[in-house]
């Protein structure tokens, strides 16, 4: 019971990381595709404006998931990180490059610096979710056996399911970011950008749907156990994801940007929970169950109590953060800020 609770809390953290942190990565992808330094300036400015104050807090969800995984399910943590050493090292380096370059770009004034740091920021925003998705694919397709580096160091993450996971992660992040940015643009007086991002949101949403659809065939061939779970126990969640995704696209089409946000978020969250439901109670498919991997009851209880108390501090703090920056500023939209192009 304690172990299941810990797993559920960890999955909530993973969902938050996908919905918030993932959108920050997606914003980096759009930064990459924004075009030349002059044409792309308004978009890049909107992206910086939107994710600047919140990306570090969003990033903490990843640390939350990692720490909870090692505290509550130590053997699974050891098995996953030792076997998937390569993609996780690459994801870690991507995380470094993304965060540091974003901060450096903001502190730079000259165009060549902004271009250099911007390129690092944008490229690593593409690479990091890909590798994290590949890691998810490796775990979901049962390629991580228990034990230290017991799986194949290469093929555990270079395989069809990992490729599916990586691509789906990138497109889903991009979709979330575009949906969120629509409403940000509409609110912050960058009205001409809202339809731009709405179009991108629709395209990335359709691409995500297509990738997921193709994924059905991939999983059928490559990860039969996961396929079975997704088409049986987790089927309602898969359907929910598809319905929410379609609803989001309709709302975008009708310029209901604020309402499109929860729809898109639900579509992504439902896929994550579908994966969890399909695989449960196995943590390492074919090897370790939740009960087998769970830590001592005292550890689980202590961590859950601490997190519950922490939530009492965190929820109002997060509310303050988002509320502070989701309000319109009186000065916003005047465009008097020194141009990043100068």
């Amino acid at each position, binding site marked *: 019971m304690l172990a299941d609770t810990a797993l559920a809390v960890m999955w909530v953290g993973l969902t938050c990381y996908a919905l918030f942190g993932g959108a920050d990565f997606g914003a980096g992808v759009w930064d990459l595709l924004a075009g030349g330094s002059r044409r792309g300036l308004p978009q890049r400015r909107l992206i910086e404006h939107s994710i600047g104050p919140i990306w570090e807090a969003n990033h903490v969800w990843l640390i939350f998931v990692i720490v909870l995984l090692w505290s509550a399910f130590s053997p699974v943590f050891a098995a996953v990180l030792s076997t998937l050493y390569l993609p996780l*090292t690459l994801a870690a380096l991507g995380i470094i490059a993304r965060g*540091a370059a974003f901060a450096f770009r903001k502190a730079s004034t000259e165009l060549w610096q902004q271009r250099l740091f911007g390129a690092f920021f944008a490229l690593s925003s593409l690479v990091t979710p890909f590798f994290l998705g590949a890691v998810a694919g490796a775990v979901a397709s049962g390629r991580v056996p228990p034990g230290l580096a017991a799986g194949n160091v290469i093929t555990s993450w270079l395989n069809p399911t990992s490729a599916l996971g990586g691509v789906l992660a990138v497109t889903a992040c991009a979709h979330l970011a575009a949906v969120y940015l629509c409403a940000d643009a509409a609110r912050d007086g960058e009205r001409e950008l809202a339809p731009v991002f709405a179009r991108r949101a629709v395209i990335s949403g359709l691409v995500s749907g297509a990738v997921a659809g193709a994924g059905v065939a991939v999983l059928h061939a490559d990860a039969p156990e996961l396929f079975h779970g997704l088409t049986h126990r987790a089927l309602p969640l898969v359907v929910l994801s598809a319905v929410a995704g379609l609803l989001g696209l309709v709302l975008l089409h009708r310029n209901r940007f604020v309402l499109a946000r929860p729809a898109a978020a639900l579509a992504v969250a439902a896929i994550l929970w579908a994966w969890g439901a399909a695989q449960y109670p196995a943590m390492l498919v074919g090897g370790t169950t939740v009960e087998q991997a769970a830590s001592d009851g005292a550890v689980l209880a202590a*961590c859950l109590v601490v997190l519950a108390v922490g939530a009492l501090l965190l929820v109002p703090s997060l509310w303050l953060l988002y509320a502070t920056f989701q309000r319109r500023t009186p000065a916003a939209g005047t465009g008097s800020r020194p141009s990043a192009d100068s």
Partner: protein
Amino acid sequence: MAVTHDLAATAWPAVLSAVDKVSEGDLAAARAQMGFSLAWHIVVACLGVGLPALTLIAEWYGIRTGNPAHRLLARRWARAMGVLFAVGAVSGTILSFEMGLLWPGLMGRFGQVIGLPFALEGIAFFIEAIFLGIYLYAWDRLPPRRHLLTGLPIVVAGVASAFFVVCANAWMNQPRGFVLREGKVVDVDPWAAMLNPASPPQTVHMILAAFMVASFTTAAVYAVALLRGRRDAYHKAGFYIPFTLGAAVTPFQLVVGDWAARFLAEFQPAKLAAIEGVFTTGSHVPLTLGGVARDDALRYGLEIPNGLSLLVGYSPSTVVQGLDKVPRGQWPAVTGVHWAFDIMVGIGLFLLALGAWLLLSWWRGRRSRDELLDQRGSRLFLVLAAIGGPASVVALESGWCVTELGRQPWIVWGIMSVRDAVNPAPGLMTGLWLVLIVYAGMTVATVYVLRRLAKGTAVPLAPQEQDVESYPVV
């Protein structure tokens, strides 16, 4: 609490998987990568703990006195804080990855034992990140005093983060809160693990070190500016605020350092023996400064008769345990640990003397505070203060070397060796090279950006900041 100090327990029954696969090169690479990324992160983390306090002091002064120099200082430091916090956040995340990527043997077995402090640290870090976002970006959205208040959680959470993380490190020195039964970790008491005997001295020592490093490095930047002749109110305040804080903390740090060493004498005598280069157990042990460990003795050092016995037990007849009580295969690298310790203490005393100089000049009453910087000896004082910044970083790294190298070959003192903990996957050396390249780039960029911020024109703190353009640039 139940503790197992059974040295024989190192022979793990089939340690999760084949340890003999590990090559010497990969073990060295893993240690180098962990050491390097920790050594990098620790500097940024210390600035992340100390700099918010300095910034808040400057901002508070600015609000209270209306002095524009203080307000400008607060803005400048906040900008540096934004950059440092970002690189600190990501370099810290990498460490949590590396715990599993490099040391899965440790985490698979003991991850649950040290999970609690990390969960707490996660919460503290979350609070820090949230309020940093508000503090940095809402400068023009909140009234001044409310804005100042949003900075307080950053300081509190920063100190708390340092406390929790160092608790986990202290556990590696004093593993508590679990029982080993047939090689299995059972009966875990996470609170006893977190609040182990090494936690109090180590955490206090580290937190004070963070404030010292942040203070003396910031002061050094302004000491250089003052030496270059920019003796205006802005640069003087930029020097005095951090330097006073650093000078105030230093005496306490020496007392705490003494406590930490005394703690080792009781709880980790082998570590103290390596630190002081004591090979033979006995009384009337001298304190040796410098020297080289050769043929089971510390040679060519400067010996103070009875010094160590006096320091440990206030009496020459105090018996100090030497390395002869420890199997030879479990000795840390004595010369390195000993030198790191001497360097740390030497720099600590140097910084104490600098602080005393400041205090003395105040006591002389006739001069006002600012005249310290204008009198004849001020040049020497400022040169030394400018050296004090980098020196404090060297002391920090040396202290870190003492505690980490002094723990070798153990990753969990007396229970698990680093060799048993390392990832048996091939190719760790490649990871080391990748990490070195990325960190080299990040180091260059961080220094470059911070230098630009220090002298650059008024860059907006954030896209939301509209009024910064009108700020004077000194």
